């Protein structure tokens, strides 16, 4: 099976100490590699205001990571861990590879089209003289 690409964002309580945040991330990394996946990148967005209140909190510590795996077990395991983890208040996984594929396709399509007709710079002004002639007799 081909490899799939996922986005995983999770939000931790804003009062989580830095050490705990790193611990959560490292356990996730561990779990992912154990199941045969791979974490491409981890990006801490830091404390941000959430758009609505979650568990009576207005702020959260956002962590964003990109995961690569060839089967869904990895995502299942990661989500299970996030669910049981205490400091995590919210998480979201999005599968991205299909959208990237579409993006690629559109890009290639556009490049082909651009290559096919570079000559087209049509003069768009043949209608105007006729219009002036039509107006002239009335005045």
């Amino acid at each position, binding site marked *: 099976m081909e490899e799939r690409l996922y986005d995983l964002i999770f939000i931790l309580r804003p009062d989580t100490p830095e050490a705990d945040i790193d611990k959560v991330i490292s356990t996730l990394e561990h779990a992912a590699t154990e199941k045969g996946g791979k974490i491409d990148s981890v990006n801490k967005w830091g404390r941000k205001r959430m758009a609505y209140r979650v568990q009576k909190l207005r702020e959260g510590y956002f962590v964003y990571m990109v995961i690569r795996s060839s089967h869904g077990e990895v995502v299942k395991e990661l989500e299970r861990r996030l669910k049981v983890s205490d400091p995590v208040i919210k998480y979201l996984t999005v599968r991205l590879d299909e959208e990237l594929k579409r993006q690629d396709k559109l890009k290639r399509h556009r490049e082909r089209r651009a290559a096919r007709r570079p000559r087209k710079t049509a003069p768009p002004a043949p209608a105007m003289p*006729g219009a002036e002639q039509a107006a002239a007799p009335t005045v």
Partner: protein
Amino acid sequence: MAEENAQQSYGGGGGGPRPSGPGGGPGGRPGGPAKRGKRNFVRKKKVCRFCVDKADFIDYKKAEILAPFIQERGKILPRRMTGTCARHQRWLTVAIKRAQNIALLPFAAEL
């Protein structure tokens, strides 16, 4: 003046060339000839912002680019308000809903 108005309405109906009025530039028509016949609204053509940017993908993580497309109460604005093309609106709604799920955008404004 009256004859010129008639001429204009014919030209407008056919979608053909319109005689430009005295000194009237394109789009800068005075509201004068609105008395008779159909009213001529000059409406600014809205263009899809994502088409202008040639966007192949709308990122749900960038809340600041999605924010102009929701109302203050959190509703997604319809195409007729924003001028977004059908394809991009489709992508946009998905992106907005994802952003809502991870608390980057509100589902509904708080009181």
